[in-house]
């Protein structure tokens, strides 16, 4: 009888030891895992309109002044299963002398803040034979939408890639965290 009781005590003791170990095994990966968002694929964020851009001869033209305020926010999704390089095309006489280029990883979103009158991009995918990659049709590679009436502060305007490549939820989160109100 006493022997059985000892066995029970030992079992309870062992079980008590297991509780924190098992719970850590379950909780730890959740804590360690990076902040993830539900993958909504290529669905545009709420309020992001299918306007302010044009696909023209394989290139992408962004036209922020076409609708709404000049300072716009573009969400651009890479529909391909490989990274897409976006190379800005500039006129020879442009003083801007700076290329707002970016690389969007497969099935990810990028966010461009811009107040330029017009931006034109050529799309490429990596090709070991060519340093700038192989040209692909932007229309077949990207999904684009624009927030045309965005509320910027004095300190966060300008022309820059706010999000280079991330999930849709993380991209929206980054925009809001930056103090920009897309609408």
């Amino acid at each position: 009888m006493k022997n059985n009781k000892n066995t029970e005590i030992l079992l309870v003791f062992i079980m008590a030891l297991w509780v924190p170990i098992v719970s850590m095994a379950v909780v730890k990966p959740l804590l360690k895992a990076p902040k993830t968002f539900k993958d909504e694929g290529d669905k545009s964020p709420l309020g992001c309109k299918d306007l302010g851009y044009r696909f023209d001869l394989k290139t992408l033209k962004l036209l922020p002044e076409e609708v709404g305020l000049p300072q716009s926010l573009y969400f651009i999704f890479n529909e391909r299963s490989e990274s897409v390089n976006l190379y800005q095309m500039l006129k020879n006489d442009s003083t801007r002398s700076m290329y707002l280029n970016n690389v969007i990883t497969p099935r990810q979103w990028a966010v461009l803040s811009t107040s330029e009158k017009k931006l034109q991009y050529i799309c490429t995918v990596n090709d070991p034979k060519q340093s700038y990659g192989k040209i692909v049709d932007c229309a077949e590679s990207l999904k684009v939408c624009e927030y045309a009436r965005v509320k910027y502060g004095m300190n966060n305007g300008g022309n820059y890639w706010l999000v280079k490549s991330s999930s849709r939820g993380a991209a929206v989160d980054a925009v809001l965290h930056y103090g920009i109100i897309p609408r």
Partner: protein
Amino acid sequence: MKKQVAVVLFHFLLLGVDSLTADLYAKSANPTVSTIVAKPTEPPPSPYYGVGLCDNPLYECIKTMAGDSWEKLFPDEAQRDLVQRINRCYNNLWAGKTIAVPRDLSHDTLLSLSPFPQKINGEHEKEIIVDQDKLAWGAYDAEGQLVKWGPIASGRDKCPDSNNICRTLTGLFRVFSKESKECVSDVFPIGKGGAKMPYCMYFHKGFALHGSPDMPGYRASHGCVRMFISDAKWLNETFVQISNEMNHYMGTLVIIRPVTKDGKEYGPVKLAADSPVSKKALKPKANRWVNPDEVSVQ
């Protein structure tokens, strides 16, 4: 009794498995163990400044010795200033440091040694170009004429006091705020603030152009663009206008160019170690008489 021993043994067996699992978790959480990503390294010496000019016939390079100082080597203040600008540095010299010196120093001027073109086709608006490859800024007037240029030290790749990348944000911005010689940081040193940023000119969030006594000749800041204090004073008091109602919130344009490698943006991007891009050697194409803007990208 045998049953008890079996239970205890089973328990420790499982414990062993669990610790192994925990170890695997730890490894998968550590990117240095589980992912193979080419580690970005500092670009090779730039053909635009410092030791990168040693192959250029218009420059000679000298190795400083113990006891050397800028004042001792270049007693003439104007010439000393030019040499410091060419080396993007006015910090104290140390024995063994190599510096580039223009061979025709007595005839050279600030503009003749410029890494920027003297004239660009303008859009009738003055602008400041911050070029992180040249480690320099250039101020152009509304007619596209270069007015002045100077060295910078922009954001380093990784800061020792932070987990974040300290790169300066690249893009086109407008100066929205500027302060006097007394300008100080609200953030750095972390937790205290108070780091001196004389003549600061904010262009985006907490990013600013400002003077600094520490100009080491490489990218060394937390993200701001450091410059010679005299240059920051000149820009702040003479050149830069902040965004306001009068100018329709179009403060002076600041263009921050990215750090590039082979004409591509260089940074914490995943680049295969055996990529032909990473293997391709950089050929110094530019000297001070060539417009490097025409050969650098695209």
